[in-house]
Every structure is written in C-alpha cells, then in structure tokens.
C-alpha cells in the first residue's frame, strides 16, 4: 500500500509537504498585520491596495531570492545595495546608446550585477575570504564606480520602455507585470532548489561543507554560481526599480539590504545555512512589505518608522528566527 501512496507524495511539491513551523508563523504574522492594518485604515484590505503591496513586494522578492540562495550556503551577500543601484544605472546607461543599447539594456544591467557576484564568489570560494568582508568590499567598489560614472549626481539617463513595462505594466489585466516576473523567478528558484543537483549541493554545503566536498562535489563552483545568481538577481531588482521610477538613483539600493536578509530569515531559512524553503521567503517578503506599508499608512515620521521597523525585525527574529538555527 505504501508503494501506491509514494508516487503521489512525490508529485506533491516538496515545499508544502512538511510545513515548517517558522513558515507557518510568518504567514500567521501576515494575517495579524492585515487585521491590524484594516483596523487603522479601512482601505487596507481592498484588492487594489493589496495588489499594490504585492507589486512593491515583488522588487524585494526578486532580490531576496538571490539572498536566500547565498544564505542557504551559510554565507551572506552584503553587496546588495550597490548591485541594485548598478543594475538600474547600467541598464539606463545602456539605453542611451541607440536602439541596440535599448534592446540590450536589461541584460546588460543584469550582467553588471552578475560580475560583482562572480567577484564575490571567487573571493569566498577560491580565496577563502569571509563573505561578510568580500561582499562589503565589492559593495564599496561598486559604489565608487557608480559615483565616478555619475559624477556624484543623479544619473540623467532614463529607463527604456521595456524596463517600464516589466515594472509597471499589466500584461494580464489586473495583475502587475512585476508580480508575474517575481512568480517566474520564484518558480525557477523552487525548481532549482528542489529538483536540481545544484539545489541539493547548496543545501548540503550549508549543512556540512566538508561532507559535501568529500562526496566529490565541486563545492567551490557551487558557491561561485550561487553568488553570481545573487548578484544578477540584485541587479535585476535594480532594473525593475529603475523601470518603476523611470530612472535610476544613487541610493536606490540602500533600503534593500536589511529587508532582503530579514525576509529570508523571517521566512524560516537558517542564517547558518542548510535549511529553509522558498515558501518561507515568499512569506517573509510579504511580511516585510506589509510592515513597511503599515508604518507609512500610520503616517509615522521617517525616523520613528526606522526605529520601529528595526525593533519589530529583532523581535520577530527572537521569537522564532533563532530556534531552528541552533539545530
């Protein structure tokens, strides 16, 4: 009989098969935030508003996807802010070079972010530099390069039509394109993490790098690829943001570092690596976005918003973010 039930079990997506308590908690927090938000602002539960939130969340979602893969390895990517900015700026810069530039704007922006990711990956995997150091350093280098490029002012190039469409358009009426993009990237991430040898290796390295290495897996290559993906997705997030705002800005990525890490960890991924599901990251991203939204709806001044935002994240991590990590 067990022979009969087994294939059915396998077809059932892995991320639903065992619902992590942390993921469940994250979803419960989302519900609580929605209730709390609707008490303050009656429009909070309207479809328009929620869709708007989902659209905003998708930018963070794309960036957090890359961050999640790196965190699953037991590493961290602190170069997110300027990978985002570089992605947006380079895509806009390419747009200034006629029709060819316009066509290649999006891939070029992503490519630039991937380069930073590759440098991070080489540093972590081959030169054995702690990821916290190397990614912070490449972030500074990317910042420097962008400041030199723009001369310290906001860049004047604007986003291409394609960038605006993927960020703000609605190919399917009612569903923002950005959400579709996030859905595609999310599906890709789930596939990558659960169905491929790369995904298995990522979890294995996060759990026990030595065992993975002694199993004959080229662990350094896996780490390199993971950082490249993270850089590319950060830059893609930047491309989307530039499309959303019609142009890139100097500090457009600064507000994405902490949220991307927090979203991943709040979603139940162990900060020590090796454990976590993409479903949790989705929950974490939505949770963070709603939190930011509620704080702005409550018309909290910026300074107070930052303080509360930080405190809430620390509180949530204390609540459940640490217990799985101690396993």
């Amino acid at each position, binding site marked *: 009989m067990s022979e009969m039930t087994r294939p059915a079990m396998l077809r059932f997506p892995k991320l639903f098969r065992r619902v992590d308590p942390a993921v469940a908690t994250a979803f419960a927090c989302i519900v609580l935030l929605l209730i709390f938000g609707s008490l303050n602002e009656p429009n909070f539960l309207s479809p328009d508003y929620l869709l708007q939130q989902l659209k905003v969340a998708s930018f963070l979602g794309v960036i957090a996807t890359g961050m999640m893969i790196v965190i699953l390895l037991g590493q961290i990517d602190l170069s997110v802010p300027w990978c985002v900015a570089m992605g947006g700026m380079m895509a806009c810069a390419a747009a200034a070079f006629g029709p060819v530039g316009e066509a290649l704007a999006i891939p070029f922006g992503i490519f630039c972010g991937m380069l930073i990711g590759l440098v991070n990956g080489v540093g972590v995997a081959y030169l054995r530099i702690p990821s916290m150091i190397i990614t912070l350093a490449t972030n500074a280098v990317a910042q420097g390069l962008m400041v030199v490029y723009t001369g310290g002012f906001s860049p004047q190039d604007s986003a291409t039509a394609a960038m605006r469409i993927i960020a703000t358009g609605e190919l399917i009426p009612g569903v923002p394109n950005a959400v579709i993009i996030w859905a595609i990237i999310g599906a890709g991430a789930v596939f990558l993490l659960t169905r*491929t040898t790369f995904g298995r290796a990522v979890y294995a390295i996060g759990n026990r790098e030595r065992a993975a290495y002694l199993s004959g897996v080229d662990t350094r290559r896996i780490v390199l690829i993971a950082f490249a993906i993270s850089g590319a997705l950060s830059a893609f997030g930047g491309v989307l943001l530039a499309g959303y705002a019609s142009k890139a800005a100097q500090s457009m990525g600064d507000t994405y570092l902490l949220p991307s890490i927090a979203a991943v960890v709040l979603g139940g991924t162990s900060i020590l690596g*090796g454990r976590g599901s993409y479903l949790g990251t989705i929950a974490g991203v939505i949770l963070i976005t709603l939190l930011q939204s509620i704080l702005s709806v409550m018309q909290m001044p910026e300074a107070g918003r930052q303080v509360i935002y930080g405190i809430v994240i620390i509180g949530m991590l204390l609540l459940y973010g640490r217990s799985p990590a101690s396993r």
Partner: protein
Amino acid sequence: MEAESEGRTGLLFRMEGISKRYGGVRALENADLPVTAGRIHAILGENGAGKSTLIKVMAGVVAPDEGRMLMDGREVRFSSPADANAAGIACIFQELSLIPDLSVADNIAISDPPRRFGLIDRRAQRRIAEEALARAGASDIHPRTLVKDLPLSRRQMVEIAKALARNPRILILDEATSALTATDVTKVFSVLKRLRAEGLALLYISHRMHEIAELADECTVFRNGRKVATYQAGTRTDTEVIEMMIGREYSNVFPPKPARAATAETPPLELKKLGWTGRLRDISLTVGRGEVVGLGGLDGQGQRELLLALFGVLRGCTGEVLVDGKPVSISSPAAARKRGVGMALIPEDRKTEGLMLPMTVRENLSFAVLDRISRAGIIDHAEENRLIDEMVKLLAIKTAGVDIPVGALSGGNQQKVVIAKWLMRQPRIILLNDPTRGIDVGTKQELYQLLRRLADAGASILFYSTDYDELIGCCDRVLVLYDGRVVRTLEGDGITEHALIASALNIDGPTSKGEAA
C-alpha cells in the same frame, strides 16, 4: 640523603575503583592507580584501553561515574580542570594548547596572569616565564618570542614550562614526546629526571617502548578499560608487556578469507614514494583486484593522511599514484570519484565528514551519485528512488522511510548510509577510514561481510582500523605505519595481534626486517 628522599617519596595520590561509561561503552572500569612522589609512572595500553579517560578523570576534564580519588590521604573531587590545577595536577597533552600569536610569557601565564592595578603586570609575568623556562631546561627561549615563531619541538618545551609555572605536584605527560625529534626527546628526558629528583610525581603515557624503558620507575598496563597490572620497571620483558596489552579472545565474526594466488595482473591501485610534508614518507604500496589491504599501527602515524592524500584532499603531495598501471593526478575528491579512477572514501567521522545530518536519508544516500542520475543538472527522481530502494535493501538499513533526517538513525545505520552512498557509484577502489568506530557489534559483523563481498566482486580495498581484531579478521595483508612510513608488511597467517603490536611499537623483532618495504 637517604632519609630526605624517603620523606619525599610517600604515596601522593591514589585512584580507587574509578569507572567511567560513555553511553553503552565502558571506557574505564574499576581502575586503581597509585601515584608516588619522586617517581615516574608509565601507563601502557592499546588504543582505546582507557588511558586517556584515566588522564581526563585525573585532570578534572571528565567526572567519574564511580570511585574516588585521594590526595595526601584526603578525598578530592574535581569539577573542572581548574580544580585539578589548584590541587597540584598539571597536564601536558599531545595536542599543543599554546596560542600561536601570543608571546611565550603570555602563554605560560595565561591561566592566571600576575595583575597590578587590574592590568597584567608584564614584568612579573616575564619573571615567572623565565623561571618556568629555566626549570624546564629551556632558558634559551626568550619570553617575548611569539610562539608561532618557534619550531615545534621548542613549543613543546614551552608547554612543559607552562605546566611547571603552576607549581604542580603531579605532572601528567600524555604522548608529549610524539612531536619531538630524538635529540629533543633526550633533552626532555633529562628535564623529567631532574623533576623527579625534585620530588614531583610524573605520569608518563607513551607508545614508545624504549622511552618507557629508559624513564619509568614503575608501569601500569591497561586493557579494555581495566587495569591489568602494576609492576616495577625492568621486571617484565617486552613480550610479556605486549601479552598484557593484548586483549580479549576474538570471536569468529569474520568471513573466511579466500586463498589468494600471486598474479601478474596490474594492480588497480599502486603508490610510488608518496610523501606529504613530513607526515607521510616514501609510502609505496599496491592493492590488487579483490584484495583487502589493512593499514595498521598506532593511531596518528599517518594512516588517515594516507587515505586523504589518495582521495585528493591534501595539497602538496609528492610521489606517484597509478590506477590500472597508469599515472593519475587526483587533485580533489571530485577527480577521485571519476569513472576512470573510481575511488570512494568512507571518512572517519560520519557526523562531520560523511553525512549532512539534518538532511533526509534520501538526500544523503543519493548525494554522491547525483551526477549520474541527472540530466542537465535536473535530478531523475524515478531513478533516484530505484537506486535508493536497492541500497536500503542491500545493506538492510533500518529507517522509518527515506524522507526523515539521517540524524535520527542509529550510529550503525548512519554508517551504513555513508557506505551505501558510495556503493551507489560502484567504486573500484574503496578507502575506509576506521569505519566501525562507535557502531554496534551486529552492524560491525554486517560490514565485515560486506567488505569481503565487495572484494570478491573485484573491488580493491584499503582499510584503516584502530581495532587490531578487525585488521586480523578482515585483511589479506596489513601494512603497519610508524611515523609516516610503512615499517612492516604482514601477510596471511603472519597477521597476528602480537606481530601487529610489536611492529606498531616499532620494536625490532627478529623477523620484522625482511618484509619491510
């Protein structure tokens, strides 16, 4: 003079009926040990005989389950190493405990640096260090030198000085000379003899029989956690000592070995003059098709390094590795497992090297074979399930399904998973690094049968074990390593416990030279 030494040599410390259990394993059972001031007391025994547990109990590192310890006739209890220190017991372990980036003086005074106004009094600290170094016979070492700038043998002297700075009454040396060269050993010995004359009690643990013969006043032999005998040094022959160390009768748990005819066939694995940073020297060996070759010797004589070097883990190896007669360069485990080489390594520590404990049985089992059951990086789940089912049945792995964390399995079944994960690749050369450590007898027997089956099916097996019975029962040949060299090759009926221990201790028996490679 006579009266003075009499006054110093009273019974200083005594262990009575000390027992210690780790889970189901009895590490020490009803052990007695008298320690006399002004004497050097040697402790002998095989790997796992209980020596290190004894030392740990004395040093306050582990608490005994039963028994008591008396110091100067009064009962003492140590709840931490600091307690033991305060009572006057200092330990020098095989692994150095010095911090490389601190100075010699900082290291010597590290547990209790002299203070002045709450800050470390550097001048007093230096004075303490100088005194301790002089007492250890190493006054040539400058207290301000950084430990990392000292050669290994000098660091060992600093270690001794560090122990002496605590003014111990009992000094324990656990394999403290194993890192030293012969000239340094001579120096250390003269220091130890002087300390003995000063009235210290010394406990000396070493595998080197000639050192014990030179130093010890009395010896105690341990076997399987029990004390066998305490005797005055020089009253027993080496053979008698080895017989005391040889343990239990070994039961017939091993499968029969097939008769092996000499063949001219190219051996699947051949090593020529393999070396690695002084830890492995000029190791040449062959492993034939269907042959189980054992690596013997005391723990830490280079057996692990040899297996890791073969598997491409160690950098900077010299010499040549030939697979099927063709030289290969194995730069990583990934290269070692490739089809042309077909090597597998069952690592020493399944918890950190063999398995990803929180991951499922499935994910662990198929991890080494993923490249063969995937297309363009996408795992073929049907094929994965088929292979996993096959392996779970073949090795009779007891598990409540393959989707539970492998960490939930018993030790023996975890070890089966480690082995199964490599058998999936159908390796031609299997390296095993002490694979039966910490698993139950039943599983051990299954593994012995499995090894023989694999060999009969044509695999070449290189097998390191710290258990002499296993080497005797499983291996067609045993190479005994000492200090990174193969010192002796035992074959067929020549693989006896006596021969293994004698060659492991590098005592030159009358027949040992002939077969040395």
